């Protein structure tokens, strides 16, 4: 479960990114998080991953209070999350295969498990032929798919995607979204940040809308804006 309770976040330069925001996402839920650029979507994700902490309020993820979690617990917390970052965050000097395998190594998988699973997950995002390419040889969309494969490879309980289809052409975007809904049907909690109205409307799921760091609307249905 992910719960934000009256969360405020101001950055060191004084920017007030979140303003009394409360959101709850139950285990196994699927939700889109939408809002204009600069509204605080990535800030929410960084609070959930523990990359930053909130100024006021409470952020609780899988039972961990993110403002009190110990240094020792943090790695365990992060291993339960599969995060697709808006800026991909691939490791430049490792191949596609190694980038995805690294997530499994961190989780303590054996060499055999890695050899079996990495090609399979790469085939799910249509990159089975690019396993040995380096990130800089890939297009933006391909890099994004590597980031998606990396987030999925450990079968995480929670998947958080920051604009996962921002650089991908529409057909493939729908495929990736379908993949995420399938993973949600298998039991994972999924939170998808996106701009794409059409895509959101195609799936008719819960839509959380924010603007200026505040909640605008939260409910099932269409995203018209």
């Amino acid at each position, binding site marked *: 479960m992910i719960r934000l309770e009256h969360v405020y976040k101001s950055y060191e330069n004084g920017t007030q990114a979140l303003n009394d925001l409360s959101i709850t996402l139950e285990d196994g839920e699927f939700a889109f998080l939408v809002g204009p650029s600069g509204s605080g979507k990535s800030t929410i994700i960084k609070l959930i*991953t523990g*990359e930053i902490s909130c100024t006021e309020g409470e952020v609780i993820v899988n039972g961990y209070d993110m403002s009190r979690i110990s240094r020792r617990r943090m*790695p*365990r*917390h*992060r*291993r*339960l*999350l599969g*995060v697709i*970052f808006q800026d991909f*965050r*691939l*490791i*430049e*000097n490792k191949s596609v295969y190694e980038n995805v395998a*690294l*997530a499994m*190594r*961190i*989780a*303590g*998988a*054996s*060499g055999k498990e*890695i050899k079996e699973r990495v090609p399979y997950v790469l085939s799910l995002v249509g990159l089975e032929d690019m396993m040995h390419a380096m990130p800089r040889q890939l297009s933006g969309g391909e890099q994004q798919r590597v980031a998606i494969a*990396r987030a999925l490879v450990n079968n995480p309980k929670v998947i958080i995607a920051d604009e996962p289809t921002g650089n991908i052409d529409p057909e493939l975007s729908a495929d990736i979204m379908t993949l995420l809904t399938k993973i949600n049907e298998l039991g994972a909690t999924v939170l998808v940040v996106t701009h794409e109205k059409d895509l959101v409307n195609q799936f008719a799921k819960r839509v959380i809308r924010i603007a200026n760091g505040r909640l605008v609307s939260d409910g099932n249905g269409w995203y018209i804006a």
Partner: protein
Amino acid sequence: MSMNRIGYYLKEGICGVFDHGLMSFATVCMIVSTLLLMGGFSLLAVNINKIIADLESQNQVAAYVDENLSDEEAEALGGKLLEVGNVASVTFITREQAMESFLSQYEDNSLFEDIDASVFRNRFIVNLEDLGLMETTARNLADVPGIVKVSAHLEISRGFITVRGIVNAVSWAIVGLLLVVSMFIMSNTIKLTTFARRNEIAIIKMMGASNGFIRWPFTVEGMFMGLMGSCVAFMLLWALYTLLARKVAASALGFLKIIPFGGISLYVLGAFVGVGLAVGVFGSRVAIRSYLRV
């Protein structure tokens, strides 16, 4: 730790060394020079200690006999001398033997052609049991009736003991200082290579890696550089030491017995490898500490 993990750490660490070839080369050179200095000073100290021990073992006192006593009377004093405490053995030297040994020191002894044995005194060479008691023993020997003078090389033995004290103190200070300096430099090298990789470290942390998982490749990198440095330093020290020992043996100091490298090479290698690894491990730990706080 699984074999898979160990393999990953080794591969990452060793790739790290070669990916940052120039920095690694500089670090290894630094370790080599540190170890050479450390090793050089240690071996100097060891040799000085050995030389002092040698000198001590052959430390002797000369006891001169009253000229008025006959050769027979003089030789008979030997028994009395043996009764003095701390005396290990005595050897009687006649005037004639003393003169011969004096003349043999000069190649051109025409100068002393007319010299007469009577200007030399009969004497005993006294070997001591404990060098530390030399002063007291010398006084006791002088008190034996018939002995007029005792010459002990007090200054020489005191001098060497002082030198030993200084060399030991200086070499410990230098070893300590160099150890700190080399760790500092190693740490900075790895810091520079990790600075380039701080993004990568942050990403890996974000993926839930423990500090250990991140640290191990850098530790391996440091250990590998330390190991390379210690091996190179060992071989260089070996060559230099052997060369110097040969030079000393051929020089005026040839009477000094230098310890052969073969006899101490295992200790040197052990110490070098130990220090190299320690510098590598601690240097890398210090270097990446700040990047782990993500």
